[in-house]
């Protein structure tokens, strides 16, 4: 990952912080807009830590549910399930702490750092934007709109899977962890109530497992649409999450 402080994009306009006004003005055709610093270092760090944790959690989680074939020899010679569970719990802690850090950064970062947590369902233009994006993906529109941050459809899925979904996985994950940590542990005090609420330990296991599949589906769609958008949309995608700068491919106002 490139450090944000490096002059990664020397072609960037010499504006220190492109505020909402500047962007709006530029989008409206007032100024030439080529590159905007969108994803600050903590956001990018969170993205990649989160991505790595999710991969580790999915793989280890799957093998906790369906363990490897039996090992022979003495029990004391192995600790396979123990290790897999340890890695799962460690990655879970990392994901949870990173998630909290990401929430904190939403209060400190730029305007796009808050985008992940917002779901403007009360705004008509949000739903209109979603509809336009669906048209674009359904090949009904020859050209998409330009976005500095996420498009409304992406924002919708980001909110429901990466905020609500991850929160659900963290809460159910710690609730299951509390079963081993035992009554009175902080995990039990904070999350233990989830187990009777959702209908018992077995049920929480099943829901946690389904949550994994929801995230896997999200990852498939996320990776595909990012690569596709990188090629076909009017702004850069992949490089934006490494360097933090999003560049636009044309200067058309709309």
């Amino acid at each position: 990952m490139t450090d944000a402080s490096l002059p990664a994009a020397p072609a960037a306009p010499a504006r220190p912080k492109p505020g909402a006004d500047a962007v709006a003005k530029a989008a409206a055709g007032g100024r030439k807009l080529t590159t905007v610093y969108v994803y600050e270092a903590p956001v990018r760090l969170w993205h990649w830590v989160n991505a790595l944790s999710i991969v580790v959690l999915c793989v280890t989680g799957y093998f906790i549910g369906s363990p490897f074939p039996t090992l022979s020899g003495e029990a004391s010679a192995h600790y396979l399930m123990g290790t897999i569970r340890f890695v799962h719990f460690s990655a879970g802690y990392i994901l949870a702490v990173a998630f909290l850090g990401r929430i904190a950064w939403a209060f400190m970062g730029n305007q796009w750092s808050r985008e992940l947590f917002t779901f403007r369902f009360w705004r008509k233009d949000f739903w209109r934007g979603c509809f336009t994006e669906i048209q674009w993906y359904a090949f009904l529109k020859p050209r998409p709109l330009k976005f500095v941050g996420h498009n409304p459809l992406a924002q919708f899925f980001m909110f429901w899977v990466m905020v609500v979904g991850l929160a659900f996985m963290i809460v159910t994950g710690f609730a299951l962890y509390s079963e081993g940590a035992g009554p009175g542990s902080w995990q039990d005090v904070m999350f233990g109530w989830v187990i009777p609420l959702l209908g018992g330990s077995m049920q929480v296991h099943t829901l946690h497992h389904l949550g994994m599949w929801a995230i896997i589906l999200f990852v498939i769609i996320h990776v595909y649409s990012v690569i596709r958008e990188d090629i076909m949309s009017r702004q850069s995608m992949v490089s934006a999450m490494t360097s933090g700068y999003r560049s636009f491919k044309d200067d058309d106002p709309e």
Partner: protein
Amino acid sequence: MALETFYEVMRRQGITRRSFLKYCSLTAAALGLGPEFAPQIAMAMETKPRTPVLWLHGLECTCCSESFIRSAHPLVKDVVLSMISLDYDDTLMASAGHQAEAILDEVMTKYKGNYILAVEGNPPLNEDGMYCIIGGKPFVDQLKKVAKDAKAIISWGSCASYGCVQAARPNPTRATPVHEVIFDKPIIKVPGCPPIAEVMTGVITYMLTFGQLPALDRQGRPLMFYSQRIHDKCYRRPHFDAGQYVEHFDDEGARKGYCLYKVGCKGPTTYNACSTVRWNDGVSFPIQAGHGCIGCSEDGFWDKGSWYARLADLKGSGFGVEANADQVGLVAAGVVGAGVAAHAAISALKRAQHKNTDNGTDNGAGKGGEQ
């Protein structure tokens, strides 16, 4: 007539003081209390008026009673004859019919607000409770009547605690656990199908000797017996951590006593004392006998999928699909993957087409942008 103390009742029944004291120390040990508690128990039993227990039977199979009468520590004969003064239990009592019902009324009046109600089974609520009739009346009426003046209620077994088999989908009689019928009394859940005998006598002994409820967890189960999962204290746990499992019943792993996780053991999701207290005077418990735990002390265990599969059938979670999370997930991932591939192909095709048009008319993108 003054109310008799436990001690007086025991002496009247011919129990010597020596036996009484022995009994007190055994009880203290059975409850996991230190030796200094034995005199406290003795003191309590000498001074406190005995607390009668009324034991009602609703929709159930009597397995709780069967378990209870096999208690070894304390012996159930001590509990029944000298200790709990089980004044009404239509399965165990000698009297029957009007005589039996008269005792129920007598105890309820004499010990108003001071007796413990133990419920085995649950009331079915459909058809005004007609699926379970006791003494000519629906069980739910008897339950409400006796609960009204009870000090506390013990829900024996999974029936009274959660509903159990009669409440399994589709629950035709609307069998309902006690805590969803009685709201104004403290209720202790002692789940299990049946609960372990020593757990039953242990709970009842604790309540009678200390005159208070044992410490309960969020779901109202006594922490001293239900605070850990079977898995947490299972003697096969080292095989679980090592990654050594029974793959099929009767395989090499089964003979060697490996972990039963892969053949559907519910130990990791079941709170009970089986792996510590065990059954039949500590002789064995299901996992020790080579069969996975079926999770009989958990809410709705009949509806949570196969006892022989580790991953639950989603039908049990109310999703209406007879497949587990992995099967559903793999199909969904396959569909989404195929969708993505098709979308990518169409996108490439469109792009190629677009480029051709661009080369031909040189205004394809411009047109789009002007919209």
